[in-house]
């Protein structure tokens, strides 16, 4: 049976979501550029969003009644909107940091460490 | 915290950005030839402008010291190639001053007609390219359409369309061809409504007003101290026009002509041509005023030409005084400034008893007009730089010579 002739299920989405999530987490941990960290956060949020969509999708479930229904999509909407807010505020912080320090290297933000 | 905020050394701006040096020109669409402006910008805001010139330097003055005055006339054509007739006139008048020649009446009125027509042709380019600098393409072509008609007229007079070498020391190379005056009158008649069109398309256009008003304000004091001249000077409200205020030898050309210097007095311009009023946003000395002065001068030149037609037709004498090519220039010097379309165009010539001048020098109006650009562009936006440079209406050939 070919890979392409098998109907896609929730697991497929979860795997993609997991890959994006992990990429995001690792990017958050390893990037030195503050904007790179921000991009990692976006990836994490999208990975999570994929899960919400998958759990709510009737297309991916054998029994539509067992999905979480529209809640999945609604929560995804909230995530998208909040991600916009989060990106705005993170960008503002980054720019402020850049204005004060002349760099966006998060490792240099150690003014408060003893 | 509060003490920190009150600290005057701490400034606040939108985003901290780095300054950037940008080259505008010499291969830039809106630098009118080969002007090179080095802009120091912070984002879109220009903090400093430096004009670099010399890309069109052709040693014209040095060549003039190796040629007879009449041989040098083609070089004056190539200085301000948009108003070659006026360049010829300036040089001819300077040489005539050195030779102390008195011209017949007919030649004088012929020169008035030709000079004013040349002024119209030049201002048409200035106007059209200014529209182009502000992003309006069509007025440029309309202006060139009209200019083509003027060039046709010039072609009939002297055979050339751009570099005429028509006015020479002693008069002109030819008389006006028969029927030319009528053609010229017909042209002026059809040209007048076209000027109104230009006013509709540009002068009173809302976007144009927002782009040109209160931009690049040149105060009268600054204009005088930088020795600006022509429409740039008059756009700042300084009442000076060499056709009225110049040297006797030049102003006598315009003796008996009714004309008023185009300059703003008490918030309005003297001529009442029913052209658009000065918009509220405009400040004396801004780009809009410089542009408007040029537009009014087009109209004024039309009036002057119409007066000159009558006087030319009834004038006595020949169109020129025959002058030998190897006529010896007397020992001595002569300097004469004329009101070219771009301002005071001065020619200086020193004779040493040979046919070849010992020293030739040109005082270019565009050069001085360009020198204010760094003052005018300080703190403006990048988009305003072409607006300011365009409103100065420079010709690089005249600056670099």
């Amino acid at each position, binding site marked *: 049976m070919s890979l392409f002739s098998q109907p896609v299920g929730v697991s497929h989405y979860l795997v993609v979501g997991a890959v994006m999530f992990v990429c995001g987490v690792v990017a958050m941990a390893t990037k030195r550029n503050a904007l790179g960290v921000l991009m990692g956060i976006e990836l994490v949020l999208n990975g999570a969003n994929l899960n919400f969509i998958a759990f709510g999708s009737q297309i991916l479930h054998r029994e539509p009644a067992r999905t979480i229904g529209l809640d999945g999509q609604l929560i995804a909407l909230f995530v998208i909107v909040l991600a916009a807010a989060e990106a705005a505020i993170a960008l503002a912080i980054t720019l402020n940091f850049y204005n004060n320090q002349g760099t966006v290297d998060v490792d240099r933000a150690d003014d408060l460490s003893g | 915290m509060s003490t920190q905020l009150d600290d005057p050394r701490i400034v606040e701006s939108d985003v901290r950005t780095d300054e950037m040096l940008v080259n505008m020109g010499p291969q830039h*669409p809106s630098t009118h030839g080969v002007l090179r402006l080095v802009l120091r910008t912070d984002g879109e805001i220009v903090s400093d402008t430096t004009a670099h010139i010399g890309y069109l330097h052709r040693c014209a003055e040095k060549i003039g010291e190796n040629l007879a005055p009449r041989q040098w006339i083609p070089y004056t054509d190539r200085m301000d190639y948009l108003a070659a007739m006026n360049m010829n006139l300036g040089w001819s008048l300077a040489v005539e001053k050195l030779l102390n020649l008195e011209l017949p009446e007919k030649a004088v009125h012929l020169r008035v007609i030709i000079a004013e027509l040349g002024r119209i042709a030049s201002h048409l380019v200035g106007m059209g390219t200014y529209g182009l600098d502000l992003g309006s393409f069509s007025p440029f072509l309309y202006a060139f359409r009209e200019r083509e008609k003027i060039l046709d007229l010039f072609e009939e007079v002297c055979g050339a369309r751009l570099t005429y070498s028509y006015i020479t020391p002693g008069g002109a190379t030819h008389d006006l061809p028969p029927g030319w005056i009528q053609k010229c009158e017909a042209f002026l008649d059809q040209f007048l409504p076209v000027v109104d069109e230009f006013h509709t398309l540009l002068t009173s256009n809302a976007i144009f007003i927002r782009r040109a008003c209160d931009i690049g304000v040149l105060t009268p004091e600054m204009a005088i101290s930088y020795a600006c001249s022509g429409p740039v000077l008059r756009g700042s409200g300084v009442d000076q026009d060499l056709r009225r205020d110049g040297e006797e030898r030049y102003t006598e050309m315009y003796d008996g002509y009714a004309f008023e210097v185009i300059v703003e007095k008490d918030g309005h311009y003297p001529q009442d041509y029913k052209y658009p009023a000065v918009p509220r946003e405009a400040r004396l000395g801004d780009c809009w005023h410089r542009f408007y002065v040029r537009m009014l001068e087009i109209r004024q030149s039309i009036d002057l030409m119409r007066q000159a037609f009558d006087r030319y037709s009834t004038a006595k004498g020949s169109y020129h005084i025959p002058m030998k090519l190897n006529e010896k220039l007397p020992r001595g010097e002569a300097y004469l400034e004329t009101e070219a379309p771009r301002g005071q165009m001065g020619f200086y010539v020193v004779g040493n008893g040979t046919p070849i001048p010992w020293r030739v020098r040109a005082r270019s109006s565009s050069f001085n007009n360009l020198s204010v650009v760094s003052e005018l562009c300080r703190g403006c936006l990048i988009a305003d730089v072409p607006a300011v440079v365009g409103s100065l209406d420079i010709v690089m050939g005249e600056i670099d010579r």
Partner: protein
Amino acid sequence: MRAISWLPRSVKAEEPRKNVPRVLVSPGGRVPYFTTSLSAGRKAARSTLGKTTATGIGRPVAEYLQTILPFWLAYLVAALVHATLLIVLSLASGVIFVWGERKVAGRIQDRLGPTRVGGRYGWLQTIADGIKLLTKEDLRPKGADSFLFRIAPYVGWGASYAAFIALPFANGWVAQRMNVAVFFILAVLGLEVFGVILAGYASGSKWSLFGAMREAAQVVSYEVPLGMCVIVPVMIAGTMDLTTIANMQQGWFFNWFVFHDIFTFLLFGVYFTCATAGVNRAPFDLAEAESELVAGFHTEYSGFRWLFFFVAEYGSMFMVSGLAALLFFGGWNGPIPVTAFWPDHPAMNYLANFLGMLNFVFKCTFGVVVMMWVRWTLPRVRIDQVITTCLKYCTPLAAVLFLGATLWTFAFPGGITGMRQVPYGMVREQYKPAEVRAAEDHVAGHPAAESDLAVAGQHRSPR
């Protein structure tokens, strides 16, 4: 009871909708003004709503192909047919509009424009130019980010092209009918800015960077008022499906949303301004302002890649004009419902659709020509003035008009004078998904009809 239905309450109270032909019901049982002039009854119903059967270009193709090919292949071939048609359309519209722009500009400027290649009118001038561009050297500046520089034009074009997917050309003639077509098109058109930003950054030229930053700032700001303008027709129609929106404007020209009320009429002006700014056309073409930024973001591009930017620009122009035609000017519906008097025959319906497509393309082209006209007339505004126009004029104006249109629709649900043959709510009813209808019934107190849920699959055709 929560009143969340779009329908006038009287309709629901009076008639159980299942048994009555929905079209004929008008609010309060009043026969609308214009139905009386036609011989009422079924004919009126059909004349307004009859030609709504979805006969897509691709759908018959797919159906036919399934008889000779396996399903998966038929699907592939049908999809390729759609894609090819759209690519051809995207490129052809670019070619024709470039020629048209030169002609229009020429005529505006008292000259002829192209006159030689392809005969007297220079039809083939753009093709010749395209061939010239193909043979040009593909320059890449030394300081450029090579990968991004190469990919940027395709990103821009891809976005412009992808928006065509959801653009219907006639009733049912759409590559992918989408429930959220309006939203999708706006979203995808907004992505074009990435191509520009990447091009500007990757060129390694300061002028390009300036152009890119300007375009980004401008496009992002103008998405706000543009979105607001688009919302009003969507609000009146109650759907984001462009096919439905256009179908709802069937009939005479006063059914068009632009004539719905004074607010939509004014709103179209705001929309046009914002759309012009959104696709970077004069007087808002700051990103490529030749007198300031040389050529803006595509200064360093040459040859084929440059061509892609150009095609993308004209594609976007076509797209926003098409959106205007669909949202405000009745889409493929002409001012006079000629096809309403035709016999109801599949061939005639097909012909009606074809004429509708021509009509739609004409409207799009007209919009593009108006943009050209504006371009060759007005000077260019400055970047701060562009943003000011957006934030101080367009956005508040769009918001006020949005509010006005909302109140108007609330006060006069059937339009201004009752001249509509069928109220909007009734038309919309035809296209409502069965599940939603079931939900409405549920809210209104009717039990959810099992059969409604069962056939929830498709848009319900009136016949």
